[in-house]
């Protein structure tokens, strides 16, 4: 070891702190539930439907000017673009039908519902092009996304389904590889991570879109990864030190894996900070969620997953030991 200060052998009594940890987690979960209930998530167009446009900021194209030029209610904000230049972000829903022209009036109600966001998009592109002398062909509209109500609803259902299916599959995998106590501990930890990360999204009003679902699933994957490493060590130590009480075994396992936990989360965090600061605004929300998720995932492996295994008790009789040994020699 070239860095002498890296904790090589620690002896932190994690399991003595588990009540405090549980309380802390409960407060966070309660706060998250409260925030999600009152403030709610800031859904992006993927899930809420509507349109988001990005324009390069110039002397004439400014936030107040665009706001003034918009014929309908819109959120107009400035943001930093991928290469650092300023952009103007325009977000809006559907225009009132009377602005959408004669062709639109002749549609059936069902068609109107589905076409309104597309028609509004056309109207706004026209309005802004005329007002600021912009051209679609020249790429003045850096981004222009419109999602209709049908697709946004489906995307949302698919996203939620993905989360639930992922949790269920992992539950089964851990059950198969370990014991049900571990499975319960791991899933509780994952649910804990998801709820608190969602609370974070609600608190900071970070846009919640398809990429956020990807981020949540990655957090689940990472947190699971971390939990499995700890569980593997607990299982091994439990078998090795037959007389030692569960609490001490778990503490020992957590301490021996602590150095690895810190290192892996360290290298992963380095990468994520690189994306956060250099990856541009599209990836900023995602990398922020992941950075937060690394912390919460590492914490939950110790204070939720392992603590629950301690509370539920383990049982490694001879027979189960045989059963759970997998992977020998690759």
């Amino acid at each position, binding site marked *: 070891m070239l860095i002498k200060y890296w904790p090589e052998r620690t002896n932190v009594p994690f399991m003595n702190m588990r009540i405090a940890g549980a309380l802390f987690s409960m407060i966070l979960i309660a706060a998250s539930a409260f925030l999600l209930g009152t403030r709610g998530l800031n859904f992006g167009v993927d899930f809420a439907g509507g349109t988001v446009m990005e324009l390069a900021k110039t002397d004439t194209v400014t936030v107040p000017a665009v706001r003034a030029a918009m014929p309908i209610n819109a959120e107009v904000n400035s943001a930093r673009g991928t290469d650092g230049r300023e952009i103007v972000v325009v977000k809006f829903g559907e225009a009132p039908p009377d602005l959408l022209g004669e062709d639109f009036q002749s549609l059936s109600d069902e068609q109107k519902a589905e076409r309104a966001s597309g028609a509004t998009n056309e109207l706004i592109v026209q309005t802004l092009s005329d007002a600021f002398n912009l051209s679609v062909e020249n790429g003045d509209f850096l981004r222009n996304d419109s999602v209709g109500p049908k697709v946004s609803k489906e995307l949302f259902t698919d996203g939620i389904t993905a989360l639930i299916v992922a949790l269920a599959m992992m539950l089964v995998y851990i059950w198969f590889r370990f014991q049900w106590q571990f499975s319960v501990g791991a899933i509780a930890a994952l649910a804990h991570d998801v709820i608190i990360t969602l609370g974070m999204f609600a608190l900071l009003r970070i846009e919640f879109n*398809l990429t956020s679902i990807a981020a949540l699933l990655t957090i689940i994957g990472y947190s699971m990864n971390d939990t499995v490493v700890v569980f593997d060590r607990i299982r091994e130590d439990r078998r090795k030190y037959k007389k030692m009480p569960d609490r001490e075994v778990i503490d020992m396992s957590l301490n021996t894996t602590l150095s690895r936990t810190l290192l892996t989360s360290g*290298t992963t965090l380095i990468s994520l900070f690189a994306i956060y600061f250099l990856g541009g605004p599209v990836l900023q929300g995602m990398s922020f969620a992941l950075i937060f998720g690394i912390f919460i995932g590492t914490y939950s492996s110790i204070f939720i997953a392992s603590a629950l295994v301690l509370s539920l008790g383990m049982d490694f009789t001879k027979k189960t030991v045989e059963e759970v040994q997998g992977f020998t020699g690759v």
Partner: protein
Amino acid sequence: MLQFPPWKIGLIAVILLWGVVLALPNVVNMSGAPGWMPKKGVNLGLDLQGGVYLMMEIEADEVVANRLDVLSRDVSSTLTTPQSDRIFNLPEVKGRELVVRLTRPDADGNFRTEDALKRLQKLNGPVGGVIGGAQMYEMRISGKDTITITVPQAAEESLLKDALNKTMTIVRRRVDPEGVSEISITPQGNNRIILEAPGEPDPQRLKDLLNRDGRMTFNLVDSSPAAIQAAQAGAVKPGFRLLTGDETGPLLVNNIPEIVGSDIANAAQGFDEQNRPQITFRLNGNGARKFYETTAKNTGKQFAIVLDDHVMSAPNINEPIPGGNVRITGNFTQQEAIDLAAIIEAGEMPAKLQFLDQRTVSPTLGQDSINAGYTAALIGLAAVAVFMVLIYGTLGFFAVLSLSCNIILIFAGLSGVGATLTLPGIAGIILTIGMAVDANVLVFERIREEQGEGRSPWTATQAGYERALSTIMDANITTLIAATILYLLGSGPVKGFAVTLSIGIVTSVFTAYVVTRMITVGYMKLLKPKRFGI
């Protein structure tokens, strides 16, 4: 565990070399390379390349209604008997039902509703002509003298499938008449089409091309001013419609067309004598014959070329026209003429398209994203490398070597399976860089523990790799589960993220567990270190 016979080393070397070959097109232009080498790098997603993404849906209601509309004509002719030519009201399509009301079912006492139904059943048949298959229509007596015809589920699905295939062909022919562009058109589910046009900045042009029904007809015209004036006042002559055109003004157009879209062989943009853009098209044999007959019979009159209820041109018939060559001159730009020719040639859409989801990224923004991702990846990689070497010394350096192999293999994998790299996909690669060292860290920590208990480098390494294996597998399989689900249920850029993450997991286990181990064994054989500086 620490035995690396020559065949094993050879195999690993072959995998790595093959990775380099597959990944090479991503950094070098391979156009001059020998034939066996792959030429194509990773496909860039629309978010990186810029372009237009459109998700469209064919309305099932309209497909069914159109089908029933066609059926209604057959119903009319089937029920028309020589004795009584009107024993029913004109059948009416109401939503997804065709309602036939018999007006005098029992008039002569021997033609009842049941008899009408029996006759109509002759119009029915199995879906797709498969003998014994589900029936195309469900026909039932729904009132004393009413027959309702509906399309059952199975038949509707087959109708939709046909409509989807037809629509995809038409979409392709309209947006890419030359068949040369990179536009991709793929079906999704049973009634959706996804169109991706890389590099295209303007979704509106594509939507305009696809929004039209493309119903092209030649109709005779009543051009008497009195009839037109009467129609404008609201009294449209029966059998005619009042249509207008930019060049022609209002015209009374006969409802029954002389020439229809299927009579047209091909259409193209050309130039007239004054070098203005025009549309030329040629009728097929049947169409040309019909056109000659019509022009011969109606010499001196006017006819209208109508596209989607809009009169494009209304020339006078000076003489019978043989050959079937027609041209439309008008006030179009060249692009408009090209687009109109594509619409005319592609033919009529089976049903109107709904645009559900449209996304546009300008090509410049795409390039910026690539640059940003590249910088982030480089800095992430450099920082992880420094970190690993500082903490694990020589072994850390080996981990960095295999991490570099890992990145090459990720690009090889992406290029090899023809995956699409998206912006979240780049994030996936950068994340993999951070997480890939995990397997190494797990092993090194074990080696350090074993060495701490006084074991030699050989036994410590042996024990380290053996003990860390099940942890590494468990940890990566769970992440792979998350990535697989992301792939199955995600869409667009998120799918790209799932692909890079999955490939990254597989390659990182290989490089971290196998490649690093081989390097470490080679190091121990060559330099025979007393202990590892970890």
